[in-house]
Every structure is written in structure tokens, then in C-alpha cells.
């Protein structure tokens, strides 16, 4: 056969960590110029496989062939010498240096900065990656930072580019721009290994897919032909449950009112909230879309009471001025909050589930005369585990022993279990496996159907369009007026999400 050898072929890869098999006999073949999707739930072994390709981890068994030749990849330098480039989910850029200086550091380049600047401009023109070499990184948006990382990889003329969840920080328009770049690279013969859990993106971009499940190969498919449902079922290894929205309740009284909230961030690179107004009514689900870092953390902190607002009336919970109240007082008014981070914030890793249940439920009758009512706390934790089918060894299981999805189901169960009138949910299904994500969305919709107001902050537009009655966009610390979900589109929301760039340009350009 005259066809060229595959760019990369992995055969029978095995990798064991302490007591778990992270990869067990995994095969993967990426052809020249192919855009190949690597799919799988959290813990399926995607990251391990990628670490092996990039030389961060070494396989315990199996072979790696690069363009037909067996190779061992000792470290990331060896991987780069072969022509493997990688853009990580978390960027490694120095805030206080310029783009060109950052790239020079990453390349270990010997030439002058001026020479490098010319090369950066050349690459950025060729691929339509708008990057200004002289700007300092701390001025850049997340999308711009990602472009810097991509340019850094492209300067090394990679023959295989690995992208780890690249669109999780991008607006839909930015993501479309990225796809253009990747298609162009593919046309020039550079292979792309694309890791994502967003199936619609994979359908739009990739020509081949490898699916992992529990460290093993679950199969492969052509994403252009397979349906999203088929791919999802391959990932979870079973039929996909379907979430459905119960009939919406008639609109009730306002349960959460925010009026003209303006507040400085207390963090050095935080976002100032500007003039935010919002009214959430009983039975409604309002979604707040936006790229992380546009004030989500600050807004949620101000609503949940971790930060007090300057004006007590700026936040009202169930008609009461709550701006000056702490989290406990707001909980007593009927507010619940599912935070963004799970272990360490939403739950304590070394506490058993009983105490993790108590963590925020304590104002609701779990303490008598200063002592914890152990029996009631145990019953509460057992109830959550049963209702949300949380996989745990029991009510005494430590938080750290649960998977991310199961921990999140427990946290959601705890916050819903106190019958809140207002529920704040921050990225409720981020990084959660598909089955748990559907269960969580269903729980939020059921809560709204029972007459509570739900505010969901999420970067996942598909999720917001699925469950919300209204969608607003947070950008640069400003909130757009909520629009009924049926009267808006992903494109319109995406443009509002990107609004931050324009606002920032105005702030800096004088």
C-alpha cells in the first residue's frame, strides 16, 4: 500500500496509577492532516493518554509510533522535537510580560525579540490569529491568551497539535474563529487531536473520533455521521436519560431582586460590577451567560452574602433587604447557593457526607442548644444520597472519595433539600459526567416547577437554552437585560458575551 503511515499510532497503551488503571490497552491512530476527536467522561483516561503523547507520563506497556517509526517520548522537549505541540486548558503565561517575551520564554529562543516579533506577526497574519506581540498579557482577554498559546505552538511548526478543551473559555464567535484556524492547519497537513465534551463542536469540526470509557477503548466513530446521542451513549456505556421541563408555574412574586448594584472587586485582577439590576420571580429560571472572569464570581459573592453590598437594598431576598447580611442570614431567608468549586468550597474533602450535608443546612433545625443533632444530620445525608442516586460507600464516605459528578449531585441535593425559595447555581454541571448533568438539570427544573426561583450562571450555552426561561449576559461586569429564551439565539447571546472586548478596548484606547 502506498498510503503514507499514520502521523501517530498508539497500540495497547497501559498506564497504572497507585491502585487505578488509567489506561488499559488503548489504541489511537491519527492520520496526517486529520482532525481527530478524543471523547470521554471525566476519569475516562483522556488526560492520561494525552500526557503520554506529550511525554509528561510514560506508559507501563504499549507502543508509540510516529510516522511509522517506534519512538519513546521521554519528556515534553522530546515531544516538541518530534513535532507535537499542545495547548493546555490552563494557560502558562506570565501576566507581567509581553506576548513576545512570553513566547520567547516558551521557545527558549536565541534570536532577538525584534526578530521573534516579526515571526509572530507573520504566523498571526497567515492563520488569522489576531495577536499583538508588544502587549502585556494581563491586558488580554482569555480568548486572546489562548491565541498566544496557539501562536507559540505554531512557531515550532508542529505536525500534531493537541488541544485540551479549548472552547470552554471562548464565546461562540471566538470558537468559530478557532475552528477556522484548525481547519486551515489540517489542510496544510498538520494533524489535530481535539479533546472536548461538547459534542456539537466535534460534529462540526472532526472527521474521526476515539471514545474512551473507564480507561478503555469504548469505540470509534465518524462524528460527521454519528448522532450526538450515539456518541454520548458510547461515552456513558448505556442509554441516555432525557431531562424534561415540567409545565411552568404561573409567574409568582419576586424572590430575588437586584437593583443598581455597583461594587468594586476585592481581588487585584477582579471585575467591577456596574449597575446590575435583575428580578427573579418564583417559578422562573434565569440564566446568566458569559465567559468566566466577567464578574460572575463577584456577582455570586454579592448575592450569596460572602461579600456585603454597599447598599443594603441593592439585594433583596424574598422582599427583605439582604445586602448587609452574611450567608447564614440569607439562608434563613430561603436562599441556597451551589458554588462553582466543589471540593474545598462546596464540600470539605476530609469530612464525611454527614458533615458535608450539615455544612450549609445547619440553619434549618440541625442544631439544638449548640449541639449537632447527629440523627437528623445522618437522615438528611441518607435522604440526599437516595434521592439523587449519589454513588458513595455510605453516609460516612469522605468527600474526597466521591467522583466530581457524585459530589456535585450531593451538593445540589443538599442545597435543594432545605426547600429554598431562591437557588443560585454556579456552573452546576461543569466537568460533570453526562448522566449526572442531566440529573442536575432535572433537579433545577423540578425546583422551579415547585415554585422556587432559580438563577443559573453558566458558560454552557446549550444548557442555558435547554433549561432557562430568560437569558441575560454578564460581560465586563455589566448585565444585559434578560430576554425570553425563545426570543433570542445563540448568536445574539454570543455577541453580547464578546461585548467585553469592545468595552475594554474603549477603556484602554485613548
Amino acid at each position: 500500500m502506498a498510503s503514507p503511515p499514520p502521523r501517530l499510532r498508539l497500540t495497547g497503551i497501559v498506564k497504572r496509577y497507585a491502585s487505578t488503571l488509567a489506561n488499559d490497552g488503548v489504541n489511537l491512530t491519527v492520520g496526517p492532516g486529520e482532525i481527530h476527536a478524543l471523547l470521554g467522561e471525566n476519569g475516562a483516561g483522556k488526560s492520561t493518554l494525552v500526557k503520554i503523547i506529550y511525554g509528561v507520563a510514560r506508559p507501563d506497556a504499549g507502543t508509540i509510533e510516529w510516522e511509522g517509526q517506534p519512538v519513546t517520548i521521554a519528556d515534553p522537549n522530546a515531544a516538541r522535537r518530534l513535532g507535537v505541540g499542545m495547548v493546555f486548558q490552563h494557560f502558562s503565561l506570565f501576566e507581567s510580560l509581553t506576548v513576545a517575551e512570553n513566547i520567547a520564554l516558551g521557545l527558549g529562543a536565541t534570536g532577538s525579540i525584534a526578530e521573534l516579533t516579526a515571526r509572530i506577526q507573520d504566523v498571526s497574519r497567515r492563520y488569522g490569529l489576531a495577536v499583538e506581540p508588544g502587549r502585556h498579557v494581563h491586558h488580554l482577554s482569555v480568548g486572546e491568551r489562548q491565541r498566544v498559546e496557539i501562536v507559540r505552538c505554531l512557531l515550532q511548526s508542529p505536525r500534531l497539535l493537541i488541544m485540551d478543551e479549548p472552547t470552554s473559555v471562548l464565546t461562540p464567535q471566538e470558537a468559530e474563529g478557532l475552528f477556522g484556524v484548525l481547519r486551515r492547519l489540517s489542510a496544510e497537513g498538520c494533524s489535530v487531536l481535539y479533546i472536548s465534551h461538547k459534542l456539537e463542536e466535534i460534529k462540526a469540526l472532526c472527521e474521526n473520533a476515539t471514545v474512551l470509557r473507564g480507561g478503555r477503548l469504548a469505540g470509534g466513530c465518524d462524528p460527521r455521521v454519528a448522532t450526538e446521542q450515539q456518541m454520548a451513549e458510547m461515552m456513558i456505556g448505556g442509554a441516555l436519560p432525557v431531562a424534561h421541563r415540567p409545565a411552568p408555574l404561573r409567574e409568582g412574586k419576586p424572590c430575588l431582586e437586584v437593583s443598581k448594584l455597583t461594587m468594586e472587586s476585592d481581588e487585584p485582577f477582579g471585575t467591577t460590577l456596574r449597575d446590575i439590576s435583575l428580578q427573579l420571580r418564583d417559578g422562573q429560571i434565569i440564566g446568566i451567560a458569559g465567559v468566566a472572569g466577567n464578574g460572575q464570581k463577584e456577582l455570586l459573592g454579592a448575592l450569596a452574602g460572602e461579600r456585603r453590598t454597599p447598599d443594603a437594598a441593592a439585594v433583596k431576598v424574598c422582599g427583605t433587604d439582604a445586602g448587609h447580611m452574611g450567608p447564614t442570614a440569607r439562608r434563613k431567608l430561603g436562599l441556597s447557593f451551589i458554588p462553582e468549586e466543589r471540593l474545598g468550597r462546596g464540600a470539605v474533602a476530609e469530612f464525611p457526607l454527614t458533615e458535608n450535608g450539615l455544612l450549609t443546612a445547619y440553619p434549618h433545625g440541625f442544631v439544638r442548644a449548640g449541639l449537632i443533632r447527629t440523627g437528623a444530620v445522618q437522615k438528611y445525608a441518607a435522604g440526599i444520597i437516595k434521592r439523587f442516586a449519589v454513588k458513595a460507600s455510605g453516609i460516612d464516605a469522605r468527600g474526597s472519595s466521591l467522583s466530581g459528578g457524585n459530589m456535585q449531585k450531593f451538593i445540589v441535593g443538599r442545597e435543594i433539600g432545605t426547600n429554598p425559595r431562591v437557588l443560585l447555581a454556579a456552573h452546576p454541571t461543569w466537568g460533570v459526567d453526562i448522566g449526572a448533568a442531566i440529573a442536575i438539570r432535572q433537579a433545577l427544573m423540578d425546583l422551579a416547577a415547585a415554585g422556587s426561583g432559580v438563577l443559573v450562571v453558566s458558560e454552557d450555552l446549550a444548557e442555558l437554552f435547554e433549561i432557562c426561561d430568560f437569558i441575560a449576559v454578564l460581560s465586563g461586569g455589566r448585565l444585559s437585560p434578560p430576554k425570553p429564551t425563545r426570543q433570542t439565539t445563540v448568536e445574539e447571546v454570543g455577541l453580547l458575551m464578546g461585548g467585553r472586548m469592545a468595552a475594554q478596548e474603549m477603556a484602554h484606547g485613548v
Partner: protein
Amino acid sequence: MAYRLEARARPAQAMVWLSPVLAAVLSVIGITILFAVLGRNPVQALQVLFIAPLETLDGLAELGLKATPLLLCAIGIAIGCRAEVWNIGAEGQFTVGAIAGGGVALAFGGNDYWWMQPAMLLAGVLGGMAWAAIPALLKTRFNAHEILTTLMLTYVAIQLLGYVVHGPWKDPQGYSFPQTKQFAADAMLPMLIEDTRLHVGALFALASVPLGALLLGRSMMGFRIRTVGAAPAAARYAGFSRNGVVWVCLPISGGMAGLAGICEVAGPDGQLTPVISPGYGFAAIIVAFLGRLNPFGILFASLLMALLYLGGEGLQLTMQLPIAVTGTIQGMLLFFLLAADVFINYRVRKLPPRAAAASGAATHA
């Protein structure tokens, strides 16, 4: 042959409690070697150290006497440690408690007031609390680290004690010795066992074990304390104030050390002298960790530490060994404990020869 420390998937629960036992055994081996090197008979030395003090009623009473301040200070320290509030200055709070309570004894003693002893004890507790409140204020107001402030205030407290016994409170009939008058009989704590020095302070110490366990294990305040220590972000999210917890932990810790201080001077000593503690407040830090920050564990650890103090005195008397031996043994115990604690989270794995070579190569690269 190469070995590697490998992180365990989950902490080994057995090692949590095995580690102090292992540390104690290793310390005994270390002590044996130490005696052999010093040219003493190790078997005799171990007998003097560990067995002799327990052979008489008087020895057992002395054991309880020495365990009392250790236990009180260590439980207070442990409560703070659970919130990651590190009180290193129990020795200072102990000293100020002794000064405050002793001051009450000197001022009002000898009049047979019914409130004499409660007032002394209360003054001791308040003195220790006040001394611990200073670092609490510095931490919550200026974010000054309590490890530094509590430790430094210890030296201030010791100077303060030196000042009162050399100056205003010096016994005029004391032949110029730096010491106060003997406390009057009504200002001395009652003894528990006739003809020994074991006083009622031991009962306070014993009571602090279940009370400490109740606070940490069953009360909402204990839950706040543990949450602040284990996950500060989770505590903020739940609405538990870190500053509030600091203001609970340091005063409790200081109050218990102050109680230990007044019990010590109103029990066996009966007067204030420039040195009222052989380092109980510092040894209690070792006791707290040896007891796994758990009140019941601390009870056993305090008895072991008290035995070391007693045995150390015995070594001085019968084998002419220097007092530094006690400190050396304490240090060994803490060192081995910390070393053994590594195995709670790690296991030793022997590397196969091939991987060993590879990892060797990687180190040289």
C-alpha cells in the same frame, strides 16, 4: 535497590494511630542507643525512666501532677490546631495565669473567704485568656501570624514573672530570694490523695477530656472550628467567620493554659518563683500532636510525657545524667512522630531494577 515514597490513594487510617506507637517504640530504641553511647547500662536506664516512677503510690501521684498541666495546655492547643490556629505560646499563658491567680492569693489569702479558691482559679483563667487575646487581636486586626506573636509573648510573660518576684511581690522575709510569700492555707488547692502532691487540678484536667471531645466532635462550634481549619473557602461559603473562630480558639486555649498555671502554683508550689514550669507549655505542643489532636489521645500522650519528665528526674538522681536528657528524649519523640506521620499519606514502594535505573537516569538528566 531503590525505594520510592508513593502517595496513597487515601490516607491509611491504621497509620494515624499506629504512628504515635511507632514513634514511642523508635524513641525507646533511640534512648537505648543514647545510653549505651554515654556508657550507662541501657537496661537499668530504661528501668529508671519507665518503670521506677510507676512502682509507688507517690510516683503515680507525681505522674498525675505532671500530666495535669500538660493535659490542660495540650487540649487547648489541639482545639486551636483543628482550626489551623497555632498557639505556640501556652507557656506564656500558663505563666500569666499563674501570676494573675497568684496575685489574688497573695492579696486576699488568709482571711478564709469562701470565694478564695474560685476567685484564684477564675483569675488564672482570665489571665491566660487575656494573654491569648493579644495574638487574637493582632491576627484578626493586622493579620499578624499567631505562631510568632504567641511565642514572643511567652518571653514577655516570663520577664513579667521575673519582675514581680524580684520586685513588688518579693517576700520581705525571704532572705532576698526572688520569690513571693507562701500562699496562705486557704489559698492552696486541696489534695486528692493524702500525703502526696496530687491536687484537685487533676480533676479539671480529666474533665477537660470529655468536654474537649464534646466541643470538637458534637458541637456546632467545633464543626465551625474544624471547617475553618480543613477548608477556609468552604467555611466562608457556609458563613463561618474565620475571625470569630480565632476569637474562640485562642481564648479557650489561653484560658486552659492559665488554669494549668494557677493550679501549678496553688497546688504543689504555694508561691511564685522565677521558674514555675519545666516547659509544660512547649511540651504540650508535642503532647497535642502525639495525641492526634484528639482529647482522648491527648490523655494518653500527656501521661507518657509526664512519665518522661519523672523518669528524666530519676535519671539525674540515680545515674547522674544531665537534665538535657529529658529534652533530648522529647525531641526524639517528636522527630519520630513526624517521620512516622509521613506513612499516613505515603507508602514505601520498592522500585523494580529497570524502573530504578530509569528514574536514576532521569535524576541525572
